[in-house]
């Protein structure tokens, strides 16, 4: 966990926020893309980033009113945004019905056993986070897991360790 922390502090949060705002705009309607961008850059949205977004977006002269609690309420609402540091690799498992009925339960069991993590946990070495997610829209090849940006379909419990071994 310390590793992640140091890394975050090394980065220039005001710069990252500024770049995100330049890319997506500084209106209220740009907030979700801006926050997504920051989340992608840092892996999560730390409190400093929330304060920084407010500082750079809130502007009564343009009639854009934003406060930190609103931003926090958004970050905690959307599943793709995280308030807590995540592991280097995030394993997302689809827990919706289409994957469930074609053997998803067993795959989830295999993931839990292999990573020794429960839903929402991050491993002590900061390598893995395991989360469930709602449908990813790739249902014809269920059960589906998503590791970072990589999609794996038709997963069987046996394949789980093989797939995980590809990441370091």
């Amino acid at each position: 966990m310390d590793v992640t922390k140091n890394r975050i502090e090394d980065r220039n949060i005001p710069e990252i926020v500024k770049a995100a705002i330049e890319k997506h705009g500084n209106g209220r309607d740009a907030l979700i893309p801006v926050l997504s961008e920051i989340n992608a850059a840092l892996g999560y949205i730390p409190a400093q980033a929330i304060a920084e977004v407010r500082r750079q977006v809130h502007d009564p002269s343009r009639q854009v009113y934003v406060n930190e609690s609103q931003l926090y309420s958004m970050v905690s609402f959307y599943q793709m945004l995280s308030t807590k540091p995540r592991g280097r690799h995030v394993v997302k498992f689809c827990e919706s019905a289409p994957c469930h009925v074609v053997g998803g339960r067993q795959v989830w069991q295999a993931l839990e056993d292999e990573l020794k993590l429960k839903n929402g946990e991050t491993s002590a070495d900061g390598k893995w986070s395991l989360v469930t997610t709602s449908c990813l829209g790739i249902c014809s090849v269920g059960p589906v897991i998503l590791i970072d940006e990589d999609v794996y379909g038709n997963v069987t419990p046996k394949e789980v360790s093989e797939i995980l071994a590809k990441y370091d």
Partner: protein
Amino acid sequence: MKTVRSLILVSEDEASNRLGARTLFQNLQDALQEFDLQEEVMLSTITDIGRSDALPLVIVYPEAVVYGPVRPEDAHYLIEEHLYKGRVAEDLLAPIRQLSGRIAWLRARKGTLPAEKRVVLRRAGRIDPESIDDYIINDGYLALGKALTKMTPAEVIAEIDKSGLQGRGGAGFPVGRKWSFVAGASGSPKYVVCNADESEPGTFKDRLIMEGDPFALVEAITLAGYAVGANTGYIYIRGEYALAYQRLENAIEQATAYGMLGENIFDSGFSFHIHMHAGAGAYVCGEETALLESLEGKRGEPRSRPPYPVTHGLWGKPTLVNNVETLANTLAIICNGAQWYRSLGTLSSPGTKVYTIMGQVNAPGVIEVPMGITLREVISIYARGMKPGSTFKLAQTGGSSGSIIPASLQDTPMDFESFRKAGVSLGSGALLICDETTCIVDLAKVLLQFFRFESCGKCTPCRVGTQRAYEILKRITEGQATLDDLDEFPRLAGQMEQTSNCGLGQSAAVPLRDILKYFRAEVEAHIRLGVCPAGVCPMTVERESAQTKTPVLAPA
């Protein structure tokens, strides 16, 4: 042996010859020469193949496309379209055989795949989704061109209204009426918002449209903007659809470069701009007012209605919110007319529907078929039957917020009206086919787990109701429930249906009713006998949940 690219067969029998098959053959030969294809394409004859209704026939391999009846003067056109340009000449296709009676019809359809009727997905997979040139060659921008140069906005709306198109997002609201509400609303500016937040589990039709034919969506939104009098459009796409996002962004860029988007489109004086907006992962944002909240940069919590978005939508202005598939349908209607559109589907639900098929079938995937096809047909024809050794038990339609369809409703035509009458709902077009290995209680538990997780928490009936229902279902799967618990279901379902703020809470109650209505015996077996007939539920309390007796709330 000489290798050829294609083989053309012309029917040669007395009836065909009488109808000009010989001249046709000669004309085809000439046309091949004209296009300099005689080396690549082989021309031959075939005798009676049992299609005397459409003689003379022309069959083109390797695609095995059957044309008929083909007149001698069609030869040039046919060669140009199919063999020179490489696309099927739709208007010459032999009609699907007219037989009466369900069995005859089934038999006639079986083996003649694809008997699909692709309207929305007609270009997906056939064109380069990143090239506007390819799109334009394949009839792109015909609809918008026609609307902008030859039709008034009111005429466009009237045509859509006449077509009887219903919203394809799940509710089935008449599209023409929605458009006229927005057009007639006072207040400006107006907005068009495309709901591409496709998060209904098992539904991925919109992803296919956006990835396979992104220009069509861009064109359709522009068309809708013209009809309702808006100059700004938004595409709210779910954050998980990275490829679709890229392609749409590219489509907007290219369309702008070609003058199909932006200022003064087709010199008509009409200007339109489209903005992309990615969500960040929230099922409830598929609900239109939650989507608007999210677009405005807030938590995606549904608004109280009325007022409806047609008068008070984005930034409080009149806003048209339509699903991707709905919009994609409008292009074909403007091109081919409402009359043509009504020739597809059923009287109350015209047109086609894109379904995504999943579960225990041989061929899961996506199909587009006319409205009114039955579930049995979908499974036995398009999905090539149940997996070996599986027996159909139930289907779950429309993702989580649809209905559970038992075997007894397999022959109900799938359209909005018939399903409504049968007390079930069609939803967004996902068909999850389950066999004997699926436990009804376990399935309902997964659905409620989903709703409990995705409930935005704004209104109490949904926030607490989904949690309560999940707890009861979990108790049933652990063998801890009593029959009194079952009485709780209708009560809970009634409260959620009547008092929830939005469709999420209302539809979360549906599985509770459905499982008792169709599968009461199986549910009671869990309670009375302590067994799970499908052998899925643990039927014992897991150690952890026994220790933590405190109610566990849904994770944030």
